[in-house]
């Protein structure tokens, strides 16, 4: 009974698998060595998604080969909300296509919801739901009709299809619009309807490829409220791709992917803690002079930059430095117009690992002030393990 499947399972996903604590801190190692160092005792089905050496290449232009995905090793436990964060063209959608058994991997293998994507694609597809980046509904049919057709495609009986359609319409908050043709629905409503459609056959794993692209901030927040509710109520495993940093913050763990490779993996807090230091920015009457003053009192190994944005440096506990810096500048007769201390952002993390900013994706563009040049593996010391709730 697919209908009841979600409820039966509930006790299991309200808690994370035992190995979750082992997984999280490993996230700060380079991607090549992240695969479960301690958790070998856990049987494979504990993972909703598991991939080893996954490679997907396409024949490219002029007889060349485009390597969309270049060897992924990842495990996503049941009930986790996992984000794939990366710029456009990083290989996110390709990975999802492979994991949904829509495309065959060139090398490596992947298991999704207990079935191998190459040898048992039918089972994989029956057990996963997908929200594609350019997901489409039949605009000429009503919300209800769209859902009914989809449920029947997945082999639900007529009665079951009707019941499930009513149920997911309720979850999506679209019950009063069920008889409206889809073309009359707003963008946010359509997205919620698409999510509802992906949930019709009670999938164990839900893939969301850029779930909020093209939505305004309000609709985006609504979609995320909806997704959080799904996770909390049904314990669904969500695999989300995004290039919005603030969306990745909603997730339990993040893999930062760039050019087909995972460059960092961990909880949002752990990833940011790896950067460690806050960014302090001062705007003064004379930035060049101020830079000299700051150099005098800041810890000696810190890079201090002075540019059009002001004087900036990275220090631990940034806010406690502001009064000291201001006092010192005052003594040298330099007026401080503004001062700020900001904790590291995921963009800083992305920059740290790729040398590029996620926003610009042009080389050499620092997201905010100076960043440490090379990753320092010593900072994997966060106590944050789950990052949930």
């Amino acid at each position, binding site marked *: *009974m*697919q209908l009841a*499947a*979600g409820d*039966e*399972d509930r006790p*299991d*996903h309200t808690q994370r698998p035992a190995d979750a604590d082992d997984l999280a801190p490993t996230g700060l190692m380079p991607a090549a060595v992240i695969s479960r160092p301690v958790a070998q005792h856990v049987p494979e*089905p*504990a993972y*909703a998604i598991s991939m080893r050496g996954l490679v997907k290449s396409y024949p490219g232009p002029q007889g060349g080969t485009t390597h969309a995905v270049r060897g992924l090793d990842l495990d996503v436990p*049941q*009930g986790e909300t996992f984000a794939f964060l990366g710029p456009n063209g990083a290989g996110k959608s390709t990975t999802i296509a492979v994991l*949904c*058994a*829509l*495309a*065959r991997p060139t090398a490596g293998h992947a298991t999704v*919801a*207990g079935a191998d994507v*190459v*040898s*048992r*694609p*039918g*089972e994989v*597809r*029956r057990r996963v739901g*997908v929200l*594609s980046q*350019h*997901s*489409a*509904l*039949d605009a*000429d*049919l*009503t919300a209800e*009709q769209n859902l*009914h*057709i*989809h449920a*029947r*495609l*997945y*082999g*639900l*009986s007529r009665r079951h299809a009707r019941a499930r359609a009513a149920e997911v319409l309720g979850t999506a908050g679209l019950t009063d619009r069920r008889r409206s*043709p889809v073309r009359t629905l707003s963008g946010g409503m359509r997205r919620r309807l698409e999510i509802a*459609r992906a949930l019709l056959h009670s999938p*164990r794993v839900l893939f969301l490829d850029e779930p909020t692209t093209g939505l305004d901030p309000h609709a985006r927040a609504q979609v995320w409220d909806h997704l959080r509710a799904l996770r909390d109520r049904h*314990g*669904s*495993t969500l695999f989300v791709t995004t290039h919005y940093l603030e969306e990745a913050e909603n997730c339990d763990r993040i893999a930062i992917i760039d050019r087909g490779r995972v460059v960092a993996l961990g909880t949002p807090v752990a990833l940011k803690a790896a950067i460690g230091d806050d960014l302090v920015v001062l705007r003064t009457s004379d930035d060049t002079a101020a830079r000299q003053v700051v150099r005098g009192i800041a810890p000696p190994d810190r890079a201090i930059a002075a540019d059009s944005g002001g004087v900036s440096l990275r220090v631990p506990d940034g806010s406690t430095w502001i009064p000291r810096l201001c006092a010192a500048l005052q003594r040298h007769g330099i007026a401080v117009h503004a001062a700020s201390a900001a904790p590291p952002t995921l963009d800083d993390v992305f920059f740290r690992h790729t040398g590029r900013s996620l926003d610009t994706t042009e080389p050499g563009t620092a997201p905010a002030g100076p960043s440490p040049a090379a990753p320092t593996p010593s900072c994997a010391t966060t106590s944050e393990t789950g990052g949930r709730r």
Partner: protein
Amino acid sequence: MSGPTVQTPDAPHTPDGPAPAASGISGDSGAHGGGAPARLRQELRAIHALVHRDLLRLAGRRTHTALMLLHPMLYLLVLGGGLAALIPRASLGVGYQTYLFPGMLMMTVQTPAIMVGIRLITDRQSGYLRELLMAPVSRATLLLGHCAGGTMTATAQGAVLLGLAGTVGLPYDPLLLVLLLGGMILASFTITALALALAVSLRGAETFHTLLGLIMMPLLFLSGGFFPLHALPGWAHTLAAANPLAYAVDLLRRCITHRVPDQEAATGIEWAGRQPPLPLEAGLLLATGIVALLWAARRFSRPE
């Protein structure tokens, strides 16, 4: 969720192992969990879902449906009515409107049947096709569903036009109507299958439209729907013998002759001066449709 313990009754778990079906994405119908009956039911439900979608679209877009029906009606009543006075009955064996009727039935089913091909392309472009491909059924089933849906909607529209039989001087004989309906199902199926075979190998809707514009005109004029084929020069007559639409029109016309012997129209297709038997014509039409459908399914099943 708690591992592989959750099984749907539709899909009892069977260890498939790396069977030959493990070749994956394309021919994956054997890789589903579950026995053959459960799998067959799943595939049938998917076909039903696609037919249901087409019927819902037909019912939901009334203006569009009405406009599609208006087209052959105008031909039949305006063109047919106008030319009826000019064309002597002796040259055709029947009145011109009666002569035109089978051709217009074919035109009525042809438009929605071809629309299926266009929709396959637009579905691909809009991303709806990807949603369909995610369904746990084989791709051949999806194509079959499209074909069944197209056949069904085309025949439904043709059935409406059958209501005009009285205005062109044909009796409302139940058996005649059943025969014509059967002929239209066959014609719809073949045209839908041909349209799908064309659509699976094309990526752009515009290419499809251009190609259709190019080939539809000769196909229609060589179908014998508007004028008798024997009026054509010899080479055109030979071409017509290779035109599936000509067989469809001939089939419908001979159904009428069969039930209403006094409405014996001029003969259509001839092979070396002899008219092929009716069952052979029907069989050829069916075979063309099946071959086109198989080819399209094969092409469609190739992983992208």
